């Protein structure tokens, strides 16, 4: 039977005469009318609201809970933020702290957070469909333009939509953001912040313009094949190059290299060669390596296989297999000759010391690294092919290379990656079809998405992948449209440059690699922005001559730079005059001459009322405190005005300091200052030195 015939029969049967037609039509209408209330009656949300009423009726504070409860569809509408959330229709107990013991969803109250629900709604942080009123529609995404609920492990990404600055409560997001800079993701991928500024990298990939002076083609080949085989901490990712491709890229890089003007001192080189192969001389040289505090920045693997040392400079475990002796002696003498932008300080080593350190480092080699590696002389075709590959892989996004321009926007921009619609993503097999799984998989194993893709392979741990995913999810459409008044913008980067002769010295010594001043610089060593208000001139002069650690439990990191007296005076004068806090007038209180009674009162306060000995040492025989600096000589180190202001409010002088504010009276603060300023160590001994 065909369809029209069927229809005709159907019409005749039910709508043949007007009475039966009317009857049937009315019935159909009635049923249709009943659908809406029935749907309502059987809807998820009504069921949950009835469940909630049953739940609270059994509680001791049922009356209060029932008074708070509002039935029917609930909605949070925040036009400014584009939020229309009906989640509280089912999640009825969001603000009922007394239901904290309830574990049944959707009736759990929201865990405490610093924001009010009615000011931000739900989807701003949790994603999902705010307007939906069924469980399925709200939480899962069935259509390409919809967003599923964000798994808890990426929740911190939502904080990052408004908070462009690090927050103490979001360690994962902070880590992810730091990694985007430190692993150089932003060399290739542009990421704009909501204020329009572009995120900049904090790693410092070396220039390759003089690479042939520094290392061999064989080493370049081995490095290209597997950077982590040379150093487990290398941040350069693995591009999974074939042997032929690595051969051709190394051929091009070496052939494009131009000579640097390096100073070669033959005597240093001779010393280095002697020391390199002599175990006893090695031991002597190792003490210079130690005294110079190279380990503050560079790590070396010890016999047990653990890395010991800092991570500001590259790992040196196998450096002898990498660099040319001629290059190394020049680098140790003055790294700025080879790379004017390096973060390594210019130690003023003499030629003998340069030789010692060079020999010591050359002995740190790995015979297996380049064993059995032989590369035939490069052909012009190989070099040309190598150059093409360098362009294809965007090597110049990170490295300066002769004859290759830095590509603009080499990889896709990621400013809105956190809201990219799922239908615009090409998924690798086995990856769940949602944005966060896509981002995670892409970071973890980029080439799984296609063997011809150029994104390299990193060696991240699962929690690092999650941190990066969170950081990327925070870069989304919503973050760009939230009204500026509701956001906490990023701190603008500081381009502070100290002036004059001292400025040149600070650049030459690369103080900023470890110390921050006026918002610029590293965080390994103390911030020096207000150092001029805190220390005494004689102490600072002596410290530059022979730096020492102030804290018993702290590994000393400040190197001795072998500065001349004139250089030390220049730096000291500059610090004392320029780096002054507006809150502390260094000359407002005398360094000595406090009445003995006041000193004695200060001593009592120190040991009994304030219990300072829990963190500090003044009497080396009885005090043991290990957290704060040792105070045995504090009276000849700090200014009285600084000590007094520190007593009043430590965090005002050094934000984030561990020392708590005590709300001290002026008298107590003065007495403690008097006591501390009387701690001048053994002055007779000092005088003899």
């Amino acid at each position: 039977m065909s369809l029209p015939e069927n229809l005709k029969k159907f019409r005749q049967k039910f709508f043949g005469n007007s009475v039966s037609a009317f009857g049937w039509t009315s019935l159909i209408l009635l049923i249709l009318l009943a659908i809406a209330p029935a749907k309502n009656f059987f809807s998820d949300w009504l069921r949950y609201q009835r469940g909630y009423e049953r739940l609270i009726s059994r509680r001791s504070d049922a009356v209060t809970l029932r008074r708070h409860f509002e039935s029917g569809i609930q909605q949070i509408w925040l036009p400014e933020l584009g939020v229309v959330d009906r989640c509280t229709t089912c999640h009825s107990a969001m603000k009922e702290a007394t239901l904290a013991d309830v574990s049944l969803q959707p009736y759990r109250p929201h865990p405490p957070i610093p924001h009010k629900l009615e000011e931000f709604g739900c989807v701003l942080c949790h994603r999902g469909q705010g307007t939906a009123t069924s469980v399925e529609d709200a939480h899962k995404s069935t259509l390409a333009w919809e967003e599923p609920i964000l798994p808890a492990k990426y929740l911190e990404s939502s904080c990052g939509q408004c908070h462009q600055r690090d927050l103490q409560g979001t360690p994962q997001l902070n880590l992810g953001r730091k990694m985007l800079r430190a692993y150089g993701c932003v060399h290739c991928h542009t990421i704009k912040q909501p204020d329009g500024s572009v995120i900049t990298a904090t790693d410092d990939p070396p220039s390759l313009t003089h690479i042939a002076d520094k290392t061999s083609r064989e080493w370049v080949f081995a490095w290209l094949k597997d950077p982590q085989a040379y150093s487990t901490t290398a941040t350069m990712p693995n591009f999974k190059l074939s042997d032929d491709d690595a051969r051709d890229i190394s051929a091009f890089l070496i052939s494009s290299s131009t000579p640097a003007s390096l100073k070669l001192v033959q005597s240093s080189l001779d010393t280095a060669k002697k020391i390199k192969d002599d175990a006893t001389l090695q031991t002597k040289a190792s003490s210079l390596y130690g005294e110079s505090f190279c380990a503050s920045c560079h790590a070396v693997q010890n016999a047990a296989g653990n890395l010991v040392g800092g991570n500001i400079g590259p790992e040196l475990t196998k450096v002898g297999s990498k660099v040319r002796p001629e290059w190394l002696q020049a680098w140790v003498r003055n790294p700025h000759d080879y790379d004017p932008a390096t973060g390594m300080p210019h130690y003023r080593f003499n030629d003998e010391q340069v030789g010692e350190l060079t020999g010591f480092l050359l002995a740190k080699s790995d015979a297996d690294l380049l064993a059995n590696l032989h590369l035939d002389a490069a052909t012009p075709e190989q070099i040309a092919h190598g150059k093409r590959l360098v362009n294809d892989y965007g090597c110049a996004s990170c490295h300066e290379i002769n004859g290759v321009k830095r590509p603009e926007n080499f990889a896709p921009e990621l400013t809105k990656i956190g809201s990219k619609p799922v239908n615009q993503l090409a998924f690798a097999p086995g990856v769940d079809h949602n944005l966060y799984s896509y981002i995670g998989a892409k970071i973890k194993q980029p080439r799984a998405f296609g063997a011809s893709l150029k994104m390299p392979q990193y060696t991240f741990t699962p929690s690092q992948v999650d941190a990066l995913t969170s950081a990327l999810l925070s870069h989304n459409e919503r973050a760009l449209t939230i009204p500026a008044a509701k956001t906490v913008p990023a701190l603008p980067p500081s381009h502070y440059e100290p002036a004059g002769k001292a400025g040149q010295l600070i650049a030459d010594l690369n103080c900023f690699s470890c110390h921050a001043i006026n918002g610029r610089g590293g965080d390994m060593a103390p911030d020096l922005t207000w150092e001029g208000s805190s220390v005494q001139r004689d102490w600072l002069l002596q410290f530059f001559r022979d730096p020492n650690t102030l804290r018993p439990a702290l590994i000393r990191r400040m190197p001795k730079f072998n500065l001349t007296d004139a250089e030390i005076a220049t730096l000291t004068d500059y610090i004392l005059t320029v780096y002054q806090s507006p809150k502390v007038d260094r000359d407002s209180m005398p360094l000595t001459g406090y009445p003995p009674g006041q000193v004695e009162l200060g001593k009592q306060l120190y040991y009994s009322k304030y219990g300072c000995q829990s963190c500090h040492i003044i009497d080396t025989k009885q005090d043991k405190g290990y957290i704060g600096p040792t105070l045995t000589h504090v009276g000849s180190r700090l200014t009285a005005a600084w000590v007094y202001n520190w007593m009043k409010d430590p965090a005002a002088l050094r934000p984030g300091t561990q020392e708590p504010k005590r709300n001290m009276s002026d008298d107590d603060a003065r007495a403690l200052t008097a006591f501390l300023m009387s701690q001048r160590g053994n002055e007779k001994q000092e005088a003899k030195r």
Partner: protein
Amino acid sequence: MTRILLIALLPAIVLSACSGHSTAASPEPAAYGAAIVESSGGKQITEVGTPLPQPVVVQVNDDQGAAVTGALVQLTGPNGIYLDPASGLTDPSGQFTSNISLGVTPGRYQIVATTKTKSGKNVDLKLEEIALGYQEVLGSQLNDQYCARCHNQESSPERVSNYDNLEVKPHPFTEGDTLNKMTDADLTAIISHGGPALNKSPLMAPYGYTLSKSEIQSLIAYIRMVSDPPYGAPGIVYAQK
């Protein structure tokens, strides 16, 4: 007519067939043990929804206490927990290892590891893991910054503990036997106003002028969450099935 019906129904049939979860079948045990014990991985702390820092490793032993290879271990846990894998056979050293992520609810998660004995009886091992919510994460960060050097005995070259240097010994925040007896008001008082507020030593300094009220609340939430034995008063949630 039937053809139309079939065409209309087909997608529904296909969909329903697809939506059925394919649960990986547990392997057949090759051996049976008598007891199951923890090797490592209990009592770890992580953020909600994130993997535990270390995998959970349990060991199946026979009645002589020797490791049993090929015994079946099954893990179960509260809603939202992710067990990778949830079951498997013990390896040659008698161990079964699983990477575990905790759910979205802050609280304690009980994981039960089960193995069957020869007679078909189940033997259980209960493990507890802790998931920190926003407030407790903030508390743990503040603890790291301000408190841990005195209250935690663990010492490393980068961060030497001050615990041994203190004349009066503070309690590690996991020490529930002591800390659970203190009310929230007690904790707020000693953290804000220092030891003397509770007639204790001034070596415990006041933090009320350094930390905000909500930061102190976060610290207390953290202390309550990590305490062992657990702090049972309202405010702490046991993530249940």
